[in-house]
Structure formats: structure tokens, C-alpha cells
């Protein structure tokens, strides 16, 4: 298995994704309960659900790479959601996204001042942001949205979006008014094992996609490029790895930490604005962020503080939600139990090969429980998919904590000249 770790990050993740889809289509074919596990609709829903998680995760990436822990992402997203909705209602969808970014930056600014200038513990400041974010949004709603038609203290009127779009040639999008072929759609309809499943899931990522979603996905390679290939990125990363060393080489550590935290807020704010956009909620609604900031943090850890990994984490966590939306008779979530059992069994085998007995026992027990649950029931309650992301993160940490590479100086107080 050594060759896997020698692959570049994106290729490794692509391989994992392919294995995942293979297991999905295998289980789906064998059980014959549902076709939703690999449907276009599921992958569309997953993508929409995944975008805010992805943006929160990337937000966390910039902050923590600069050495500032950011558990305030949730609060920043809530501010982003409020400002995004307000901007979109008054000035249109695109402006809404920009204003949402600014809302997130506002929250991040508080976090930056507290942690960077005043040396307040990052967790404590993050908790404070998570209290101030919703408080601010609620107050603003009571002052502003309450006065709108259809608005109230907990929600806004409908929020306009930025349109949708199909990828030409692959998903049958228009090219200057000409309807191009729908390559993936054609493959998907052939119903070939695995291949059609891949085509369907991929087509879902390319059809009826909002430009804002494309922007979010494009931010993954952009973040990688910025952090690992540019001067800015190297200087930002030194602040998370070894700030004193950076200082000794003439880097203004405070400045780059500010950049990191503010970018973090900008991305979280964009994620919040996205939640309010018609892609997801279509309105500002209190409580609608619903832990996505924390799930983004989970994606960040799952992805080992790297953009491609965060993307995979976000999609993995969004998948059960997306499936849940499409899952009218609850058979798909039910089948997902069996997929989980298979995954756990695979981990148990892996742990056995590594001689890690505790890991093996835990994974085997989980596999057994999931399988038993699957075979002894016909449907699963909806909360099962809600907790899946959090369970996955705990399991990833449990089985893999030693191999995670947290930036070395993440969360440490830094003061110039000490």
C-alpha cells in the first residue's frame, strides 16, 4: 500500500473517491433497494450541501495555517448569512455574496484583534464569536428584517440568487444558445455497473450548478496554489509553523496572521451567504447554519489541513444530507448503513494487518452493529444521517490521530520580540 502515499494529494483523494463510489454501486446493486445512492439528484444535493462546509473548511485552513485556531467559524457564517441575505435582497444575488463575505470578515476582525493583538486564547475568542455572531444577526433582524414584507425577527423575505448553469458537452449545457450533447447523461442512462454510477455522480456536479458553487469549488485549487506556491502562502504558513523563525527572517507575523484570519472570515462569510441563497435556504433563517461551521472544522481535520482533503471531507459529510433530501421512502439512508458496515469492516481488516488490536475491535464492533441494524430494520430514522459527519470525524481521529499534521504552532500565543 506504500504506493498510495507516494501519490500526489489530489490523485490519492481521487482514488479514495473511486473506491468509495465502487462500494456504493456494489452495495446498491446487490441490495437492489434503491438507486439514489448514485443518482444525479443525490450528487447535486451533495454539492449544494457541501459548498458551505467546504467554504468553512477552507476558511479554517487559512486561519489555522497562519496559527490561529478558529472555532468561531460558526459565528462568522451566521454573520455571513445575515449580511448575504440583506445584500441580496437589496442589491441582488452577486452583491449579496460580496456583502456576506464582508459580514464574515467583520466577525473575523473581532477574532483577529482579540487573539493577535491581545493574546486572548483562541478557543475562548472563538466561543465569544459564536455567541456574538448569532446575537448580532438576531439584533439586526429585529431591527431590519422585521420591517420587511414577509420578514421577522427570525427570518428574511426570499433571497434572490445568481442563476444556474449546465456544463456544455459533459452535461448538455448551452453554448451560445446551442444545446450541446449530454455525454455523461448518456453514459448514465446506459446503466453499466460502476461506470454509469460515476457518470451520474459526476453529471450531478456539472448540471444545474450555480456560478457561486463553481467559484467555491475553484477556490480549492486556488487555495492550494496560494498557500504552497506563492510568497504570500509561504509567509502565511510560517506563522502557523514557526512564527518566531518567521519574525527572525523579517516577516511581519502579525500582518500575515491578520491575513489568515480575515481570509478565514471571508470564506466563512461566503459560505454563510451561500446558505441564505436559493441554492440552499433561499432565505435568512435563524439556526439555519446548523453547525456547518463546526462541520467545516471537521472537514479541515479530516482533510489533514490541505485543500483537496477538505473538499473530500466536505463532500463526504454532505453526502448523507444530500441523500437524506432525495430519500423519500428512507431506503437509501437504510442502504447507507450497509455501506458504513462495509467501510468499518475494511478498517477492521486494515487495523488487523497493522497489528492494532484496539482499532480492530472497535471497527469490527461498529461494523457488526451497523450490519445488524441494517438487517434487523427496514428504515432508519432521519437523525442517523444528521450525526454521520460527526461520527466520521471522531472515527477518523480515533483511527488516524497520530498521522494528522496540525500546523506546529497552531493556537500558540505569539508576541513580537519574545
Amino acid at each position, binding site marked *: 500500500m506504500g504506493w498510495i502515499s507516494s501519490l500526489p494529494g489530489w490523485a490519492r483523494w481521487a482514488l479514495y473517491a473511486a473506491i468509495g463510489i465502487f462500494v456504493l454501486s456494489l452495495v446498491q446493486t446487490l441490495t437492489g433497494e434503491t438507486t439514489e445512492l448514485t443518482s444525479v439528484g443525490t450528487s447535486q444535493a451533495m454539492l449544494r450541501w457541501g459548498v458551505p462546509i467546504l467554504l468553512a473548511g477552507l476558511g479554517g485552513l487559512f486561519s489555522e495555517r497562519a496559527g490561529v485556531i478558529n472555532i468561531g467559524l460558526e459565528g462568522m457564517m451566521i454573520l455571513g448569512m445575515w449580511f448575504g441575505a440583506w445584500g441580496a435582497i437589496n442589491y441582488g444575488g452577486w452583491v449579496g455574496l460580496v456583502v456576506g463575505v464582508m459580514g464574515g470578515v467583520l466577525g473575523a476582525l473581532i477574532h483577529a484583534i482579540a487573539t493577535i493583538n491581545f493574546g486572548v486564547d483562541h478557543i475562548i475568542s472563538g466561543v465569544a464569536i459564536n455567541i456574538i455572531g448569532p446575537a448580532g444577526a438576531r439584533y439586526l433582524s429585529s431591527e431590519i428584517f422585521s420591517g420587511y414584507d414577509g420578514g421577522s425577527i427570525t427570518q428574511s423575505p426570499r433571497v434572490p440568487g445568481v442563476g444556474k448553469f449546465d456544463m456544455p458537452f459533459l452535461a448538455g449545457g448551452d453554448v451560445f444558445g446551442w444545446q450541446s450533447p449530454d455525454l455523461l447523461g448518456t453514459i448514465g442512462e446506459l446503466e453499466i455497473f460502476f461506470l454509469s454510477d460515476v457518470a451520474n455522480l459526476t453529471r450531478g456536479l456539472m448540471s444545474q450548478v450555480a456560478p457561486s458553487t463553481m467559484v467555491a469549488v475553484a477556490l480549492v485549487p486556488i487555495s492550494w496554489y496560494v498557500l504552497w*506556491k*506563492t*510568497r*504570500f502562502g*509561504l*509567509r502565511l*504558513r*510560517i506563522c502557523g*509553523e*514557526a512564527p*518566531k*523563525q*518567521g*519574525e*527572525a*527572517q*523579517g*516577516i*511581519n507575523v502579525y500582518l500575515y496572521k491578520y491575513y489568515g484570519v480575515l481570509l478565514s472570515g471571508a470564506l466563512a462569510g461566503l459560505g454563510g451567504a451561500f446558505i441564505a441563497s436559493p441554492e440552499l435556504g433561499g432565505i435568512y433563517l435563524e439556526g439555519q447554519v446548523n453547525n456547518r461551521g463546526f462541520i467545516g472544522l471537521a472537514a479541515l481535520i479530516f482533510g489533514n489541513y490541505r485543500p483537496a482533503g477538505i473538499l473530500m471531507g466536505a463532500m463526504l459529510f454532505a453526502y448523507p444530507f444530500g441523500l437524506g433530501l432525495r430519500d423519500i421512502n428512507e431506503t437509501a439512508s437504510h442502504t447507507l448503513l450497509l455501506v458504513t458496515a462495509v467501510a468499518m469492516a475494511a478498517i477492521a481488516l486494515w487495523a488487523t494487518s497493522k497489528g492494532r488490536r484496539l482499532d480492530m475491535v472497535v471497527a469490527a464492533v461498529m461494523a457488526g452493529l451497523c450490519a445488524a441494524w441494517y438487517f434487523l430494520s427496514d428504515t432508519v430514522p432521519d437523525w442517523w444521517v444528521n450525526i454521520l459527519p460527526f461520527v466520521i470525524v471522531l472515527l477518523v481521529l480515533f483511527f488516524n490521530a497520530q498521522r494528522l*499534521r496540525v*500546523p*506546529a504552532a497552531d493556537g500558540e500565543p505569539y508576541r513580537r*520580540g519574545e
Partner: protein
Amino acid sequence: MTQGNDSPADGSPTINQPAIELSGITKTFPGVVANDDVSMTVAQGEIHAICGENGAGKSTLMKILYGMQSADEGTMRVFGDRVDFKSPTDAIDLGIGMVHQHFMLADQLTVLENVVLGAEPTKSGGRIDFEAAKAHLQEVSESYGLDVDPDDLVETLGVGERQRVEIIKVLYRGAKILILDEPTAVLVPQEVEELFRNMRELKADGATILFIDHKLEEVLEIADSITVLRHGKTVATLPNEGVTASDLAELMVGSELPSPEITESTVTDTVTLEVRNLTVGGGGDRPAVDDVSLKVHAGEIVGIAGVEGNGQSELVNAIVGTVSPSEGSVFLSGEDITRRNVRTRRESGIAYVPEDRHHEGLLLSAPLWENAALGHQTKPPYARGFFIDRAGAREHTETIRAGFDVRTPNIDVSAQTLSGGNQQKLILGRELTSNPKLLVAAHPTRGIDIGAQAAVWDEMRQARKDGLATLLISADLDELIGLSDTIVVMFRGGVVATLDPSDVTPRTLGAYMTGAAIESDDRTDDLKGTP
């Protein structure tokens, strides 16, 4: 410009100007005057050593020179121009580079990333031109024989390599003035020789080198001129001609240096500590401590010599109980304590002076009396049953304060307000007054002033006389030779020699420590109980 052939376009050093001229530099921190009216002149192209004991203000002065701190008063001139550094960037721009005592490298970054940081060649869009950077790095490393692989992660490098990266980093930016802060502290003698060879090459190329050290022989070997600091003041700047180590020592401390020395043997037959075939770590990797056996008798001081990182810390941890050995056992007064936790070991009479007092010895933000209780909080006078006996603890702290001359306004101030020497006296006081059988003292005089050093030595001698068994780990070879009844040398985790201090010199000890003397000595692994 490191080649010195073509003259740089601007900031070109004028031949007659001194490289650095400091006058009247004063820097105070709350409660401390670190530099008091310091003046010195460093000529171009010389190797200039700065000596002084711990706390004399050397490091602060260097930080001021490198722009990491700014002086309260005084002026600095570099190549004749008056300068006022706001940050290291300003110093770097004028061609000043610094190799810090604690390496300034990020472990998770590559050598190349570490070197270019802050001076990255970029293409459009802020993209780092890694090819150009690598070419430049290789050019620098080849022209001075500083061999490193630019793509290695720093965390995989050894100490010597890291120092080379540090020097390359400085040269990469075309530094004309190099500040080296105690560069030999972490090196073995062979590496020191290599470093000195590099320094001479740099000097031949026209570089000016400022070199902080307090190993006087090294200073006399390499420096062209020497500035001595004492209590934050410049005492003298002298050329390295006809100066002896004892002259320098006298300048450094205002009188001659005290030396550790023990008189008649107080060693008894009672074995207090016995370590039997102890191995720590291993399992694939080379064990940190490899099959070590030794005995310490009541009234005996056994010194452990070794270059740092050869298993001494792990041996100490295994005796104190913070790590558990993979094999072997530890006996205290005949009882097997291998399986006991730290608390029961300390309760049964192990006193411990850790190697880094801030890291392991003190609760810096807690008051002194709480610090005095640390490690002994389960016993009177600090505790009464399940409860902490505040009155008893305070009273006992006063006893320590008086008995060990801990200078403090009162025992309610936090430990961080004390000087290093007073902190160390507090630690020694709490350990020695706990009625121990064994003292494990790791680098007990590291980084403290000479007065405190002498006091620590006195206390250890007195305790030895009173029958305490002591295991002393030190990097200060004079201290080891002077205080120990027996010296055990560790190399790569194992014991390579057991020596009688009365017939070793630092030089022969150094040979054992680097493994150089192993082949020529058949006493390897042969243990003598008493000298």
C-alpha cells in the same frame, strides 16, 4: 557579494569604516538593566568574540543589533552610517545576518523553503521562483562547502546540518556581517572544528563575524578581537594577542571564577540507587538508553557526561518515572521501583532538579509557596491528609527562603519574577529539604549567574557530606570533574566509560563523549562501583 569581487551597487562598505560601531547602548526591561551604556567597535573582516557570563547582556545586545529589539538609548552605526532598526528586515537589508542559538527553522518546511523565507525570488503573481532559489542556494552551499539537500524536510536533519542551513540562510541573503549566538553550544568538537573552518573561509571572503561564546578556549582559538561584557556593561575590548583564559575569566566576573571541587571522599558502601540493564525506547528505532547499569552510593556524587542527546535525559526520566523503560529495572535502597509512578517514587525519597526549570521545574505564574510544594504536595509540611496545609507550606517556604538564600521580596510573588539563580535555589531548596535519599540533578547550574552557581555547588557538597546519593548530569565538564566522585560517560544511549575524575581532563572526557576514545579503551561497559 559574498565572493567580494565586484563591489555592490549601494551600501558599499567603505574600506576604512568599522563594520559596526555601538556607542552608549542602553536597554532596560522591567526591573532589569540588560545593557548599560555598551560601546564597542567591530572592524570589517574580523572575527570578533563577545564574552560574558549568563545574564551579562550578550543576547540582548545581539537582538538589538539584529533589530529584534530596539535600544532605549545609544547609537548604532553600520559601515559608518547611523542606523535605527525597527525590525530584523532593516538589519537584513544592511547585510546583517544572525544565526540564533536556538535554531530558527520550521521543522515541517523544506530546507529550501526555510532558506528563501523572507527573501523569496518571485515570478509574476507572487509565485515563488523555486528553480532560481534552488540554484542560488546550491551556489552558496558549494562555495563554502556547506553541504545540504534543499528538498529535505528540516525535521529530518541533525544538529550539525541544521546549523549549516542556518548559515546558508544568512549567506543566501548576501549578509556581510554574521552574528553567531553561541554556535558551538550544541556541537561536538569535530563539528566545532568544521564550523571554525567555515568561519575562516567566510572571513577570507571579507565577511565580518560576531561570535558569542563563553567557552574561553574556543574564543582564543578563533577570534581576532574580544569584547567582554559584565552586568550589561562593556568591560574591555582587546585584540587576541597574549591574552589568556584566566585574564578573560577575570574580566568576565570581576574576580576569578569559582570552581567546583570536592574534598575528601564521603562515599559509603550503601547502594542507594541501582540501575540494572535499563533500556528506554527501541522497538525498531535505536533505543535512547541502551542497556545501562550503574550504582550510586550514599554520600556519592556520580556524574553523567555526554554530548546532549545521547540518552542522558531519557535515563533521568526513567529514574524519576516520567517514562517507563522497555527493559531493565531501577532500585532505590534495594527496593524495585521500576513499576512505580512518579508520585510514589518521589514519596519514597527521590529529589529531582529538572534540566529545564521553566519547562519542568516551576509553576511560573503561581506564588513561591505553591512552587515550593510542587513534587511534595502529598506530605507534611505541605499537606495534612487530603488537604493542603497552607500555613505549613508557607512556613516551610520561608525556611527554604532563608536557608537557601532565595532573594525575593516575599513568598507571594510569582516564580517568574525571580532571577534564574534564585529560581534554581528555590528548586534545590525544596528538593533538599524534602529529606531525600537520592538527588537527580540535571544541569543544576545551567544559565544561572556565578553567585548562584557557587551556592548550588555548596549545597550539593553539603548534602553529599550528609550522606545523600546524587546523580549529576551536566554539560559543564569542569563541574562534572570537580563535583563527581565517579564519572560515567554516555554515548549513543550506552555507558562507554566509567572514570575517576581525579585523572581525567575535559579533553580526555571529550574524547570519550564523542566516541573517539572507545576503540583505544578497554574499560567500555565495565562498571566500577566506587572509584
